């Protein structure tokens, strides 16, 4: 628990440091809002012109995207700099985390915040509530609980995947491009329901790099689109479990990587 208190103390400092740059903040917020608006407009135009895509209507697509975005916004607020790990390693700044009398993991995580995630958060919340109304959803308490869990699971899935890929740079020195590949898979999953893609692709984003659990599978459950006939319908409930497995895996890899670490010097 001491670690958590320390973490939030450092995060507060990081936020204060970031708030020194007001104009940058404003430009960032506007940039993110424009990006999201464009994304949702593209999806809406495409789907509304064809009424649905593989049975997904426009508002269901908005829900799918915004559920992804909500989990992603928490990731991008707190954990965005994980992908910059290779720079910490190459420049040797990583050493300072190791010299302090606290967990290097906490020191690294609390190093920075990307407050622009606030714009993503607002946009996602707005999109989800609009979709909720337009789809005439009436969730029970259990479904709300699952929704909360799914969002946290989404954040954890993205964070742990990025962390594991970033850890490659402990061995190779570089990991940027590998993380871009992850981003691209992620982008395809965030816009479109994976059931429109081929079998191999679905297998990859479900079993190998399980980004589909960030939004697709929980959305099936939350919008009542689970097919009870299908032997795979239980996947709709699996997001929290997948997140837990990934957390365990990532923590193992992180500790393995730390033991492997030798400073770049400098």
């Amino acid at each position: 628990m001491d670690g958590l208190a320390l973490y939030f103390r450092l995060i507060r400092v990081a936020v204060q440091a970031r708030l020194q740059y007001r104009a940058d903040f404003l430009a960032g917020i506007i940039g993110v809002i424009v990006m999201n608006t464009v994304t949702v407009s593209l999806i809406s135009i495409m789907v509304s012109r064809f009424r649905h895509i593989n049975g997904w209507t426009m508002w269901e697509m908005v829900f799918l995207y915004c559920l992804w975005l909500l989990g992603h916004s928490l990731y991008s607020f707190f954990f965005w700099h994980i992908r910059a790990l290779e720079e910490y390693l190459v420049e040797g700044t990583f050493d300072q985390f190791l010299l302090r009398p606290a967990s290097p993991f906490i020191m690294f995580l609390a190093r920075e915040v990307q407050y622009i995630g606030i714009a993503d958060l607002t946009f996602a919340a707005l999109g989800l509530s609009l979709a909720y109304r337009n789809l005439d959803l009436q969730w029970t308490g259990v479904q709300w609980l699952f929704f909360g869990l799914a969002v946290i699971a989404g954040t954890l899935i993205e964070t742990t995947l990025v962390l594991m890929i970033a850890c490659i740079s402990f061995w190779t020195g570089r990991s940027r491009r590998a993380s871009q590949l992850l981003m691209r898979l992620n982008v395809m999953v965030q816009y479109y329901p994976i059931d429109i893609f081929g079998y191999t692709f679905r297998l990859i984003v479900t079993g190998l790099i399980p980004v589909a659990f960030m939004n697709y599978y929980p959305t099936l459950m939350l919008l009542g689109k689970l097919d009870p006939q299908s032997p795979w319908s239980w996947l709709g409930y699996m997001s929290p479990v997948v997140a837990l497995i990934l957390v365990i895996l990532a923590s193992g890899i992180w500790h393995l990587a730390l033991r492997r670490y030798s400073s770049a010097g400098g």
Partner: protein
Amino acid sequence: MKIFWSFTRQAFQFIAAYRFNFFMEFVLVILRMYGIYWVWRVLYTQRPGAFGVSLDQMVTYGVMGMALEMFIWSRPQWYMANQIKSGAIDTDLMKPLDFHLYMLARSTGETLIGVGVLALPALLAAYLLLGVQYPPDAWTGLMFAVSLVLGFLLLFHLNFLLGSLAVVALDIRHISWAYFSLVRFLGGQIVPLWLFPTFLRVVADVLPFKGAYFIPISIYIGKLSGVAAFQALGFQTVWLVILVLLSRLLWGMAHRRLVVQGG
């Protein structure tokens, strides 16, 4: 002409030095094409022949849009912003070459390499695997080539204008995010303009962005042909002239304002 080649060679050497990066980039382009292919395939299986276009034409449109990501790939505005921020721009300005032309040569070199090493191989794969079409005839192919060059020049000048802004704004990273998504959207890189609702169509029709993607690709798939295609080329040319003049004017102003810190 000689400077163009020297920049092309430079860009090639850069790529040769980072082969893994380049391989990943290639995989990313293929993934993009694969994604858009399935989207249109599903939509057109639901409603064959919608909006007067066949599935093959639509898939070709989508895949070409992804291949032309190369046009955004060379980002002179980032180079300019970095040089201005670090102060290294003074070495660029000291070169015995007009800065605007220098950036154009750089960008052309990078884009040629991007097209040759990434876009063409990816397109070849798409021809074989995704059923992308060739242009209907040689004449269309020629029109497409002209339109493509105009489109590249259009986008270069828009980028250059954004880069000039860095003199005033210093950090243009966030503005760039908004800019890139607007180019993609209003340019019709992913969703063609004929699907837009009327009010958006009106806006996108007068802005220069559609010259970068929508016009060349529409010519390629044969959606724009005959007189309409010529008009479209005219539209690109007019905007290009406007943007060149604007670039000269704005960079001239920015140049006078430019303050290089330290050094």
